Structure formats: structure tokens, C-alpha cells
């Protein structure tokens, strides 16, 4: 993929080989190729446009080093810009409060329950916490069982009320339970919901109001396409979440949704999930994600040599 993008860029630059600088004229064709690469990676159409326009301004006038072709220089500029956009300030999980309450939300099937298990495992093993998992999904068949199985695998207690048909109440009771059982982190797994489902969006907002979580994480499937912006925006408007979790990165998707979401809500990606087993939780590397979105191998070395 890197080869092909790089080759396409070289072709776009062909007429201007030998020129020392990237100019308005020669950058136009390249920008089009980069935009196509981004959209192929599922970056939102409008965002890809805005982003490449910015890159164009940045690139114009750049001096092409002898050892590196204009195409490669453009790729480097794009990649650095992408990584910068997705990186920024270090973004730790917020664990203030006793117990610290973490609310997990997102679309159906995005990986919330699995991630809840992974996070509990991580906090227990790596941060020495004693977490309580909360089954606040009262809709999905066997949602409670699923969380209990995961809790069992990692030795973390799961709070549930199989007969309660009120997720807000379950969440509230769970926090009380955490107090009395000396649990210092509460992780609330909620049902999947669509952004257009008003009743369900109101429910998760009500859970937030009731338990005042220190941290809210929006879980999103890395294979998501153009709609990622709509969803992220509505969830953020409703919940003002603190961070994003990108799941199923063990697949071969380019993951452009990551860029779209960052662009639209400007919230950091705090974790990536890359497997079905509970030990497959990683921190986020903006640089790697940028390369992945562009479908390229590592060209930093190549550029540094120059």
C-alpha cells in the first residue's frame, strides 16, 4: 500500500522532477492522490478535504532534499501532520475519586463489554486497583452472563441486578456497593445504542447524571466508515466523553475513523483494543496510527538518513 501511494505520488510529481521546491502547481495532483488514499482508509470525505488543503499550504515552498523525492517528502509531511493531529497532549485515564467511576458507551457490537473486561484486568494487574465491573446493559440477551464470564476469567467482581429494568438505578446501586466493598474503581458497561435512538441516548445521559463518572470512554470499532463523525459527534454532545477506545485493530482495516473522530470531537484516543483475549489492550501510538491510515511502512528512517 505504501508502495502504491508513494508510486502514485511519484507519477503525480513526474513533470516536476528536478525542481528543488514543492510549488502550488506540482502539489495539486499529489494532494488529490493523498485525499483518495485517506478516503479509501475511511477518513471522512469532508475531513480528508480540509486536511489535505492544510497539508497543501504547509507543503508549498518546502525544499526537496536530494536524497528524498518530492513524493516521499509529501508523504512525510502528511504523516507528521496526521500524527500531530492525533497525538497532542499525553492523555492518561482519569482515576480521581474513590471510587473512580468509569462509564463505557458506544454503538452496538463495538466492543464495550470486552473492553470493560480488558480495562478491569489492566487496572487490577498494572495499577494495583480493585475494580468492580457493572452490568448496566439490560437489553442485550445474555449481556450479564457475558460480563460475568469475563469477570470470572480475570478474578474481578461483577455487579448485576438481573430483575431490575432500570439501568440508572443499577449504576447508582453499583457505586454504593463499591463503597461498601472497598472497590476503588467502578467500570460501568452499558448497552450498545445508536446515536439516533433518542430514548437510549437519554438513558446513558441519565446514568452519567446519576453517577457523575470521572471518566467516560467512547468505544468505537476501527472498521467504521464515513458515519463515524455523526456518531462521535452525537455521543460527545450528549456525554462530553473524556476519551476514545479504538477496537478490533488486530484486523487489517486502515482505521481512518480514528482521524475523523479526533478531528470532529478533539478527544484523545486513550486505548486501543486488538484481540478477543482480555490481555490485548494497548496504549495508543499516534505515529503508528498515522502510518496505518496512510497504508505505509516506516519512512521516518529513510527521511532521517537524508
Amino acid at each position, binding site marked *: 500500500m505504501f508502495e502504491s501511494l508513494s508510486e502514485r505520488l511519484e507519477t503525480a510529481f513526474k513533470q516536476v522532477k528536478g525542481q528543488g521546491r514543492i510549488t502550488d502547481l506540482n502539489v495539486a495532483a499529489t494532494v488529490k492522490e493523498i485525499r*483518495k488514499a485517506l*478516503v*479509501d*482508509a*475511511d477518513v*471522512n*470525505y*469532508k475531513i480528508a478535504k480540509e486536511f489535505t488543503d492544510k497539508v497543501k499550504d504547509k507543503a508549498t515552498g518546502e525544499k526537496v532534499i536530494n536524497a528524498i523525492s518530492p513524493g516521499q517528502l509529501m508523504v512525510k509531511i502528511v504523516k507528521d501532520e496526521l500524527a500531530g493531529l492525533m497525538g497532542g497532549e499525553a492523555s492518561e485515564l482519569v482515576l480521581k475519586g474513590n471510587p473512580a467511576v468509569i462509564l463505557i458507551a458506544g*454503538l*452496538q*457490537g*463495538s*466492543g464495550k*463489554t470486552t473492553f470493560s473486561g480488558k480495562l478491569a484486568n489492566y487496572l487490577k494487574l498494572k495499577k494495583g486497583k480493585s475494580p468492580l465491573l457493572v452490568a448496566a446493559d439490560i*437489553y*442485550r*440477551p*445474555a449481556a450479564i*452472563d*457475558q*460480563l*460475568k*464470564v*469475563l469477570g470470572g*476469567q480475570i478474578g474481578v467482581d461483577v455487579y448485576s441486578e438481573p430483575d431490575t429494568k432500570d439501568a440508572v438505578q443499577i449504576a447508582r446501586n453499583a457505586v454504593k456497593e463499591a463503597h461498601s466493598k472497598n472497590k476503588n474503581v467502578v467500570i460501568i458497561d452499558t448497552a450498545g445504542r*445508536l*446515536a*439516533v435512538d433518542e430514548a437510549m441516548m437519554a438513558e446513558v445521559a441519565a446514568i452519567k447524571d446519576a453517577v457523575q463518572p470521572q471518566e467516560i470512554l467512547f468505544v468505537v*470499532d476501527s*472498521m*467504521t*466508515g*464515513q*458515519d*463515524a463523525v*455523526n*456518531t462521535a459527534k452525537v455521543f460527545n454532545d450528549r456525554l462530553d466523553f473524556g476519551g476514545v477506545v479504538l477496537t*478490533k485493530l*488486530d*484486523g*487489517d*482495516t*486502515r482505521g*481512518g*475513523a480514528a482521524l475523523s473522530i479526533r478531528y470532529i470531537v478533539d478527544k484523545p484516543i486513550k486505548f486501543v483494543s486488538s484481540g*478477543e483475549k482480555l490481555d490485548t489492550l494497548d496504549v495508543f501510538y499516534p505515529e503508528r496510527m498515522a502510518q496505518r491510515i496512510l497504508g505505509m511502512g516506516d519512512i521516518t528512517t529513510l527521511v532521517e538518513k537524508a
Partner: protein
Amino acid sequence: QKTKEGFLGKLTRAVAGKSTVDEEVLDNLEEALVSADVGIDTTVKIIDRIEKRVAKDKYLGTTELNRLLQEEIEALLVEAPDQGYKDFELPGGKKPYVILVVGVNGVGKTTTIGKLAHQFKRAGKSVLLGAADTFRAAAVDQLTIWSERVGVPIVKKEMGADPASVAFDAVNSAVAKGVDVLLIDTAGRLHNKAHLMDELSKIRRVIQKVIPEAPHDVLLVLDGSTGQNAVEQARHFTAATQVTSLAITKLDGTAKGGVVLAIADQFKIPVRFIGVGEKAEDLLVFDRHEFVDSLFKL
């Protein structure tokens, strides 16, 4: 959403008083299609076709352009060879009719099976479920709840059992019971994991030990909010299990599922069903015309 100007609204403005399709119209068209996850290559293909048709047919106005669009896009969606599942009827003469359901993690396989069971039962068919996802936490419990909800029997084993052996038992049981249709659930798996894809091929082979021409349908479930990666899913699942139908789920949200245009065009696999909710009745037989129409709705 509703406050945003619809694509056709934009289109109408763009072509008002003009006699040809100009750049602006094509740009709007490109934006609408790409934003529906159709993908650049398929979008370019559609736009080329529109340009050719316009040159040939003499473009007149929005109504005609709209009709051309509908026609050209619908043409990409292959028609199911046997018009299968209209009103949830099964192609005759194959009993039990075995449907193997596959797909990546979390797309809606188990739920789609629950909905299909409901629809087939309502259409007067006897249904059996096979719980061959023995891996995902509480997957068997989930399918069991669906079997109770719909009121159909289920063949299952303990978690961690060999999925192929569950499938084998389910097919044998379907034959013995003389049911009309057997729906086999499988664990979600990412298509780039070779060992998991091999496991699917094995399930297929084991089914064929009992009924050589089964599975009669291999249904690949795609999440309607998935982007271009769905093309890779179709490619790899087809290679492993010879996918014969598609279902697109979660179309009750704002995602359009436009990537199936590329898939249908490339792999010639018909879309059979769409999922529009989480309840048993939230499954529809795919309608090309309505689907294309919905691509342009906001």
C-alpha cells in the same frame, strides 16, 4: 440530521436552469456517494456511467438525473438468482435447508439468526438453531435466549467445544427431526486470521459429510456502519466458505451501508436481508430500489 440539506435538494439547486451535468453536480454526487461508504473506485465508476448516459440520452433535468442514478446504481446490485427468501419462503426441494452464518466480530450474526428464525417460523417453517460459537463469552446463552424468545429448538454443547462437532450434530439432528431450515451460528472472526478462517472451512466440510450439497446458503453478515474494510471481509470469507448471500445490519442508524455496492459489483453476491433494529421483527428482505433511494436520504 433532518436539518441538513438532502443530497437531492443540493442536486436540484445545482442543476436548476442548467441543461448539462456540470462539475458541481458531479462533485455533489461524488460527495453523496463517498459519504455513504460507496468508496472512491465504485463512485468513479458510477459517475463515469452517468456521464456516458447523459451524453447519450441528452440530460434534461433533476427528475431524469435522479432516474438515471437509480438505474445505474441498481444495476451494480446483482439480482439474487432464485429470488430467494421473498416473504421468507425457502427454495423448494431442499430439506433441511442449511444456512451457515459467518462474519467478523460483533456485526450481528447471532441477532440476525434470531430474527431469521422468527420470520421463518412465522412463514410456517420448522426451524432449528445450531450454536457453533463456542468461543465468545456467553455466546451459547445468547442464542439460547433467542431460541426461547422465538420458540424454536437449539442444538448446543458446552463452551469451548469443537464448533465443527456442534455443526455436525446440528445437521444430523435437523435431518432426524425433518426440520425445514437449520440456522448455524458461528463465532465472529477477523478475516485476516488464517487459523480462524480454516476453522470455518472445516465447519463447512463437516456439514457436507452429512449433506453433500449443504450448506445451501452461506450468509455473510456485514455491519452497515463498516467502511471499506467490508470489501476485504467479503473477499476472505468468500475464499474460505464460498459466501452466497449478504445481510447488512444496523441500517436503523445513520450509516448507509454503501460499501455493499462495491462488494456486489466485485463479487456478484446478492444482498438478501437488512437488519433495522434489535427486535425479532427488525429484519427485512433486501429491496434494491429502496436501498438505492436511501443512499441519498439524509
